[in-house]
């Protein structure tokens, strides 16, 4: 007993109190991080083929990384002409003072060499100039013509290491490419890298297509097409190019989207002016009806855990956003602002829902929390809709139309992206007019 008391008293004394003053730092800046991305060093023993040499990889790869990172709005890439140290030396051990001199806080260096089997080995290092240490070092192997993907992968790794969330550069976008006059518009499915490169058309444009959506594994695309003038939901295998009708409904099916596990497609089915939400199991082809109301229920989208579905409905009189459990129970309205709400899309992070809002003759893209609180409008314009999330839930892509003049000329539709914060609005260049974009998941899963 005595011992216990002695111990007790001893413990009381032993808990040392910090003697200094404490200051709570709860605010920092969100300025772009000043970064140096050095040219990569081409190993002297590397003998590239002439056609590869022409690409000038040691310059092009860091250039593409710079473009990716600076486009995200979180990095300020310092002018390459101001770099003091040569690529070969800085890759082995950078002279931190030289880089601090140009006010860089991080540095990316790299080395390119050729393996015996003609594969390219691209190695990079990420340095913390302020703390004088290496943060990350990785190497990728690939065929030389795949250098763009490697660059995007490196950008993703850098982004993740510094911001704490996964990147979104190694991903693609599917959209509807539009051309021709308004009265006889040709609409084709098109796919491209997230930065607008490698644009490819998937359909010929004989039938009108709408609302393409990737499957979570990026192997399939589901979309709505007017085949034989009957609007139906289709499934396209991106590897084989084969397409397949999703369910033989006696009417119009539209607004399809995959479930997060890729096993189901959720969509609207309309008959006699009433549309409801249905989910179809792709394996068993069993169809389940989820809503049963005389109103128009459409644009369904799953939460990332697959337990909930958000959709829009005009059951209350005007079109609003609703959330229900994935079995169709527990329907709750979440949008209560002025105006009408549509095309809700659940963020991959799970905490917010993006939507289109129409109010006072203006279209807005906005986000709200999943219970409807905290509505924030990110951008306002004449006409814009169809938001889609980047794989990490940081960026939203959508399309925006500019008005045509009285004769019907001059209008255009383009893809735009904007940050969750409402900043960093950027256009994404496409060869033709574009609408209905959808962002894929990351191409290489962890």
């Amino acid at each position, binding site marked *: 007993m005595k011992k216990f*008391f002695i111990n*007790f*008293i001893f413990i*009381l*004394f032993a808990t040392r*109190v*910090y*003697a*200094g*003053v*404490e*200051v*709570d*730092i*709860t*605010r*920092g*800046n*969100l*300025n772009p*991080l000043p970064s140096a991305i050095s040219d990569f060093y081409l190993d002297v023993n590397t003998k590239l083929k002439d056609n590869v040499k022409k690409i000038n990889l040691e310059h092009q790869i860091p250039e593409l990384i710079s473009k990716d990172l600076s486009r995200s709005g*979180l990095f300020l890439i310092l002018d390459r002409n101001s770099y003091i140290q040569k690529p070969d030396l800085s890759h082995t051990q950078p002279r931190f003072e030289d880089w601090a001199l140009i006010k860089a*806080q991080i540095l990316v260096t790299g080395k390119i060499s050729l393996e015996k089997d003609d594969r390219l080995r691209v190695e990079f290092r990420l340095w*913390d100039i*302020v*703390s004088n240490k290496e*943060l990350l070092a990785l190497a990728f192997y690939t065929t030389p013509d795949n250098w763009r993907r490697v660059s995007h992968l490196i950008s993703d790794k850098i982004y*993740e*290491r*510094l*911001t*704490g*969330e996964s990147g979104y550069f190694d991903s693609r976008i599917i959209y509807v490419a539009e051309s021709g006059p308004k009265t006889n518009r040709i609409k084709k499915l098109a796919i491209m890298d997230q930065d607008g490169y490698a644009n490819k058309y998937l359909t010929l444009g004989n039938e009108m297509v709408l609302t393409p959506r990737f499957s979570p594994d990026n192997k399939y695309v589901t979309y709505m097409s007017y085949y034989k003038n009957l609007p139906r939901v289709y499934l396209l295998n991106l590897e084989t190019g084969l397409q397949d009708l999703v369910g033989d409904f006696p009417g119009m099916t539209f607004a399809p989207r995959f479930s997060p596990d890729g096993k189901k497609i959720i969509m609207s089915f309309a008959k006699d002016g009433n549309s409801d939400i249905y989910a179809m199991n792709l394996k068993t082809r069993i169809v389940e009806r989820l809503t049963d109301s005389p109103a128009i229920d459409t644009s369904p989208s799953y939460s990332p855990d697959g337990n909930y579905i958000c959709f829009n409905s005009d059951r209350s009189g005007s079109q609003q956003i609703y959330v229900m459990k994935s079995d169709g129970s527990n329907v709750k309205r979440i949008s209560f602002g002025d105006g009408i709400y549509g095309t809700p899309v659940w963020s991959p992070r799970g905490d917010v829902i993006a939507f289109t809002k129409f109010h006072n003759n203006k279209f807005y893209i906005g986000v709200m929390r999943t219970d409807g609180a905290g509505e924030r409008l990110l951008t306002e314009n004449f006409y814009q809709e169809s938001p889609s999330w980047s794989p*990490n839930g*940081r960026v939203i892509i959508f399309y925006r139309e500019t008005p045509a003049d009285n004769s019907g000329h001059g209008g255009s539709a383009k893809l735009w992206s904007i940050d969750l914060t409402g900043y960093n609005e950027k256009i994404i260049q496409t060869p033709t007019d574009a609408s209905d974009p959808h962002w894929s998941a990351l191409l290489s899963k962890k």
Partner: protein
Amino acid sequence: MQHNIKISLIGHLILIVITSLTMQFLIKKVELPPSISVDLVDIGKKTNIPYAPKYNDTKSDKIEKDRVVANQAPPKIVPKEKTDTIPLQENIKKIQDILEKNQKPEKVEDKNKQTSEFEQKEVFDPNKIAALIDKSKKDNSEINKKTSLTPTQSQQKNFVTGSLTLSEQDAIKTQIFKCWNIPIGLPYNENLLVRIRLKLNTDGSVISSEIVDAGRMNTPGQNYYKILAESALRAVKLCNPLKVPSKNYEKWKDMQLNFDAKEMLKG
């Protein structure tokens, strides 16, 4: 019987010893008022200095205040106020002229004149009223946050050791704000608090910086913590040397910065 009394006495003694050791704050509490009053004096000095030059003539200030109160009821007199206030300004100038003539102070050219940060901001632009209002709102909310959301900064501890005044704390916060680039992708719903202990020289340069939970940096699954800690360390290094109070070195030579990005990430 005697044996029981002995046990009881020993028990009581132990209780008295423990309470005297653990309940020290009861004694300390008595000392609290003087330490607070010292702080208040410090704040007064710091915050009053920048505003002081605005009121060149306390007399005219007083008159203006009286006028405003008197004119509130009849709105018709408003134009009159205008005509009256102009001569008032002239009065100020006259008084200043007289003062200058009598005292013959050295004239300092405008561009060399030292003005504090606060004074410069006082230049009034009627087009920016909205901005001013916005700003004042923001400032208020910040103050509210500071008072309500300080779970980490143990106040009792600071009373014992003597804390920095609010303005001194704000000065440190403002410096770190500029140097700390927040990793924007960190989750806001996790408990991420990085505490860095600094040893400072008298000139504010950092002798050593040490993360309190350094072990957590290299624990698997603590990636977010690591990224936050690295950004905090960069901030400390970029801000080195810190601009520190000129007095009371003993008070701040050991300083702990608690980095918490939650509020920013939520926004």
